[in-house]
């Protein structure tokens, strides 16, 4: 692999791993200097760009955990949910401030998606209350798109609901899609792969810049690179002062979120 190509790939992978532009530029410059001085092929010197970027990201750590400083955007208090005689959630509470990322974790059937749907007001709760300060974007685990509509038509549809003009919605949708390494075309949603359909779902959730984003395992079907792009986008939303709640069962990103709500033990949890 030629030096320039390898260095460009490294730069892109560093961005995907959430390494800031200053540090990424420094790492790329150092790698370029080493390759120039040593004359070694980059793959022998550093290995594949994605692996080297992952090692760099691990060594510097992810974005710093943020203490609660901004105003409260989402507050769920003592949520109880029962299906028949089975109690799924028992007194679950979560508070997320502006500029924070919260992860809701737990085993299958622990009520993660139910909790998120209760926060969105899509299903009722036996007791408890939820306050949403501002507008809400929601990304379901599956569904949520229209089979016979194109991506741009989805943007127009959701955009109209949020009071965004068609052109602005198309621009915002294309921009967010590009951040997930996807270029929407004329294909109907039914012809998109599972991962691309989830990208569409994620883009729709973020259209119109909602204050609170509820994301229910939105990375289903994502490949490794897109998974990193997804977290990069989450951090970008956080940096823009939005509150993001992600339902996940993948624990390797938990050190990079600000709040963790664990529902795995007893369907009871408090996080703030």
């Amino acid at each position, binding site marked *: 692999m030629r030096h320039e190509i390898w260095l460009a790939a490294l730069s892109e992978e560093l961005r995907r791993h959430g390494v800031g532009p200053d540090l990424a530029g420094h790492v790329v410059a150092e790698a370029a200097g080493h390759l120039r001085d040593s004359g070694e092929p980059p793959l022998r010197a550093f290995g594949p760009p994605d692996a080297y970027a992952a090692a760099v990201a691990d060594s510097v750590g992810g974005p710093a955990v943020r203490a609660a400083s901004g105003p409260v955007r989402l507050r769920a208090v003592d949520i109880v949910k029962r299906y028949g005689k089975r109690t799924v959630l028992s007194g679950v509470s979560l508070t997320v401030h502006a500029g924070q990322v919260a992860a809701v974790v737990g085993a299958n059937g622990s009520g993660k998606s139910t909790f998120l749907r209760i926060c969105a007001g899509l299903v009722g709760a036996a007791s408890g209350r939820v306050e*949403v300060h501002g507008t809400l974007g929601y990304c379901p685990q599956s569904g*949520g798109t229209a089979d016979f509509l194109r991506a741009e038509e989805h943007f127009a549809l959701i955009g109209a609901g949020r009071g965004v003009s068609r052109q602005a919605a198309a621009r915002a949708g294309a921009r967010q899609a590009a951040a997930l390494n996807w270029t929407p075309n004329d294909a*109907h949603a039914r012809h998109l792969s599972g991962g691309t359909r989830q990208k569409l779902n994620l883009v729709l959730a973020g259209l119109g810049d909602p204050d609170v984003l509820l994301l229910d395992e939105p990375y289903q079907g994502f490949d490794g690179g897109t998974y990193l792009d997804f977290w990069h986008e989450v951090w970008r939303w956080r940096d823009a002062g939005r509150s993001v709640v992600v339902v996940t069962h993948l624990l390797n990103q938990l050190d990079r979120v600000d709040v963790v709500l664990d529902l795995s033990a007893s369907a009871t949890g408090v996080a703030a």
Partner: protein
Amino acid sequence: MIRTLTIAEMTLRETGRRRGVLVLLLLLPLAFYLARRGDHLGQSIRFVCLGLSWALSTAALFVGSAARSLEPRLRLSGYRTHQLFVGRLLALWTLGVALSLPYFVLIRFDQNDVRYGAIAVIMLLGVLVAPLLGLAVSALLPRDLEGMLVLLTVVGLQMILDPAGNAARVLPFWFSREIGTYAVDHTSVGYLDRGVLHGVITAGLLLLVVAVAFGIRLRRRPHVRFVEV
């Protein structure tokens, strides 16, 4: 208004891309028409109007079912409940007019000695009522198969029951038989009046059912409070 029109536009785009369904929708009333054209011209008119209504209500059922998973997200995106169902109805009414027009032209040139104005009234009332029936069924019954069976039962009963009996009057397309009799058999204007009244009342009741069913399904849950920032 922009939101309602956007829903209508996207519903039309989605429906327009289901070409196989569109062809079947167009041909189904023709089958009803041709079935009795040879021996009973008047009956073929009544049947084609019923066929149109059935085709439209089926289309509305599938439109309603297909939108079911998307609508909660649309509500969260800022749409009001009435904008969702009115938008879909606008699209279905447009589709209904486009579907009915060729059949009106067919009857105009294929049939003599019938009241064409009254036939136009049947078709317009059918276009008004059938999408409401299909959306109401889709709102009340979450699965397509159940909805289809209900529509099949309604249309089957409509064809079997004696239109003069009281039981037939509670069926949604009774107006079609009543006005059809006025148009084909040149009966008194009372048939037309009763038919129009029945169609308008049916449309009103079904609109109420659609509004209430959509309102319940897509309601804001009381435990959630949205605070403007």
